[in-house]
C-alpha cells in the first residue's frame, strides 16, 4: 500500500482540493446528539471529532427512496431514469462504515450487479479518517476497526500530521496531481501510526466475543431472550434505518394523476415491521416482535453463512427508543449475561 504524509497545516488546502473532485460531504453536528453527513459550505462546518452519524453513508449509494424506473402505460415503456453525473467526495468516513460499504457492495454488485449502486460508487471519492471509540463502539470485536480497502485515501491522525494510506488508483491520482500537499513517509511516521492504532485499540470499553456466535445464535433459536426483548421492542424500525449494513428495501409503483405515467420506487425497508414476512392469504412468517427481533439478530450474525453482518458501530443501540442494547442481547445469546 502506498503511504504519504499530510501536514495538518495543509489541511484546508487538502479539503479545498477534494472539493475539486466533486460535491464535498462530511460529518456536521446538526443537534446536541446527532451528526450527519452533509454537503459542506465552509470548512468550519466539518466536525471530525464525531463518533457516529445517525444515518450511515449507505444513503449515498442506496438512496432512502429512489426511482428505479419511470413508466408510460400507453407507450408500454419502462425507462431508466438518467443516472446523474454528480461526483461526490465523502470526507471523514470511519473504518466501520467503510467496511459496511464493502459488505453492502457484495449484496449490490456481486451476482446481479445493481447499476445504480455501481454508477454511484464509480463517481465517488471516499476519504476515511481514524477515530476514537466511545462506550458503544465494538468494531474491534467485529474485526472492522481497520479498513483495508474501500476508500481512496485514509487519514490517520498522528499528531501534527496525518498518515495517509492510498487505497485506490483514484486516490493515487489525487496525490499525483497535488504533489505539494504531501510528504514522503519516514520511519518515524510509521512508528507514530502504529502507536496511534495501538492506543485506539486499547481504548475500547465495549466488547463482544464473536467466536462461535453464529452457532450460538442457532442454538438460541427457542431462547427466552427473544421474548424478553421482543416485549420491549416498539417495532419502529429505527435500528434498521440507522444500520450501515441493513439493506432491505421495498418496491412500490406510483402512478401519476394522468393515470398513464408513473414511477417504480425502491425505498429502505425494515424487517422489524410486521408486513416484512406477510404473504398473500394473510400468513405471516414472522408474526410477532419475538420472531422479528430474532430474525434481525440472526441476520446480523451472518450476511451469508460466512460473514458477520454487523460492523460494531453501535448505532442501533444509541438510537433505539426502547433502549435495547445490541451487545447486551448478543451477550445473553452467548450466555455471558443471565
Amino acid at each position, binding site marked *: 500500500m502506498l503511504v504519504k504524509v499530510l501536514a495538518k497545516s495543509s489541511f484546508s488546502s487538502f479539503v479545498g482540493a477534494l472539493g475539486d473532485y466533486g460535491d464535498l460531504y462530511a460529518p456536521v453536528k446538526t443537534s446536541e446528539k446527532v451528526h450527519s453527513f452533509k454537503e459542506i459550505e465552509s470548512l468550519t462546518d466539518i466536525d471530525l471529532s464525531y463518533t457516529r452519524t445517525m444515518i450511515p453513508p449507505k444513503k449515498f449509494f442506496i438512496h432512502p427512496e429512489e426511482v428505479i424506473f419511470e413508466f408510460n402505460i400507453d407507450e408500454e415503456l419502462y425507462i431508466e431514469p438518467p443516472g446523474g453525473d454528480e461526483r461526490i467526495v465523502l470526507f471523514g468516513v470511519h473504518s466501520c462504515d467503510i467496511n459496511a460499504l464493502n459488505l453492502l457492495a457484495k449484496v449490490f454488485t456481486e451476482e446481479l450487479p445493481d447499476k445504480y449502486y455501481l454508477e454511484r460508487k464509480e463517481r465517488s471519492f471516499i476519504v476515511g479518517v481514524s477515530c476514537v471509540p466511545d462506550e458503544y463502539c465494538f468494531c474491534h470485536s467485529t474485526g472492522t476497526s481497520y479498513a483495508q480497502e474501500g476508500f481512496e485515501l485514509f487519514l490517520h491522525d498522528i499528531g501534527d500530521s496525518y498518515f495517509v494510506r492510498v487505497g485506490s488508483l483514484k486516490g493515487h491520482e489525487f496525490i499525483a496531481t497535488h504533489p505539494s500537499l504531501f510528504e514522503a513517509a519516514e520511519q518515524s511516521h510509521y512508528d507514530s501510526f502504529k502507536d496511534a492504532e495501538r492506543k485506539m485499540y486499547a481504548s475500547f470499553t465495549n466488547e463482544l466475543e464473536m467466536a462461535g456466535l453464529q*452457532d450460538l445464535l442457532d442454538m438460541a433459536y427457542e431462547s427466552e431472550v427473544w421474548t424478553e426483548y421482543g416485549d420491549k421492542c416498539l417495532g419502529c424500525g429505527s435500528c434498521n434505518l440507522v444500520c450501515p449494513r441493513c439493506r432491505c428495501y421495498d418496491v412500490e409503483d406510483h402512478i401519476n394523476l394522468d393515470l398513464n405515467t408513473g414511477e417504480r420506487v425502491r425505498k429502505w425497508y425494515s424487517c422489524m415491521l410486521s408486513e416484512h414476512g406477510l404473504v*398473500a392469504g394473510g400468513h405471516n412468517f414472522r408474526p410477532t416482535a419475538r420472531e422479528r427481533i430474532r430474525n434481525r439478530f*440472526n441476520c446480523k450474525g451472518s450476511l451469508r453463512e460466512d460473514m458477520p453482518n454487523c460492523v460494531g458501530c453501535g448505532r442501533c443501540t444509541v438510537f433505539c427508543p426502547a433502549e435495547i442494547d445490541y451487545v447486551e442481547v448478543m451477550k445473553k445469546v452467548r450466555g455471558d449475561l443471565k
Partner: protein
Amino acid sequence: MKVNPLEPMKAKITEIETMTEIEKLITIKLHDREYAESFSYTPGQFVTLGVMGVGEAPISICTAQNDELELEFCIRNAGRVTNAIHKLKVGDTVWGRGPYGNGFPMDVYEGNDLLLIAGGLGIAPIRGVLQYALQNREKYGDISVLYGVRCYDLMLFKDDMLDYFRNGDRHGVKFYLSYEDKEDQVCYGLACERDDRCMHGMVTDLFKKIDRPSKKTYAIIGGPPIMYKFTIMQLEKLNFRPERVYMTLERRMRCGVGQCGHCIVGTGKSIKYVCKDGPVFTLWDAMNTKGMI
C-alpha cells in the same frame, strides 16, 4: 437485450383459461424474440410477473421448457397484483423478470423413481416437474403423483389431471387423488371409478394407497406450509433420507435476486434467501435451517 436485471421485459397474453373461481391459467409470449429464445429454465423456477403501475408478484412457471416459447402460469387472485393480472384480456401486456431461483435439479433425479406430492397451488410447480419427467420418460424410473384437492371445483389443471388419472398407465405415471369434501359428487365418482387411486381424505392419506417407495426414490413436494409437516412425517416413516426429499417454499418477495431481504430464512448459522438459494430446498437443508418449514 436486457441490461438492467431489474428491468421488466414485455410479454403478451396469448391465452387465458379460467380454472376455478380464483385461479386462472395464463399463457404469455415474451415480446423480445432474442430474450424469449434465451429464456431457459427448469421446473420450480419462477418469474416476477407484473402489471405496469400496479406492481410485481413472484409466480412459478408451471410448464416444462418447450419449443413454443410460451410460458404458462397458474395465478390465484390473492391481492393487488394478482387481481390486476386477473383483469387482463388476451392480447394485453404483462411484464416479467426472470427466471429466478434454483428450480428442481431434474438431472440429479435421473435414474431414480419420483414421488410427487402436491396440494393446493403447490401443483403449479409440480406440474412442471411432471411434464419434464414425462418428456424425458426414459431418464426416470417409476413416477407416482399424489395430488390433494379440497373439492372438484377447486382442482387445478383439471384436463391434465384427469387425463393422468384415467390414462396414467399410458403416460407412465401412477396418479393418485384425494379430496377433502365428503359431499363432493364428482370426486366420489372418480373414487368409484378407481378406488385404488382416489379417496376421500388429505393428501397424506394417499400414502396408504401407494406401493412402498423404493430406496432410490426422490420425493418432491409442493403445497401450503401446513402440508409439509404432515407429508414429511409420512416420508420419515417410510425411512426417506433427508437429502432425497425436495420441496418448494413460499415467502414474501420483492426483488427475486437476493437484494431486498424479504425472503430471508434461517439463523446466523444458516441464513438463506428463498429467492436465490431456493425456492427449492431439501429436507436436509430444512433440518439445518431453523424456521424454514
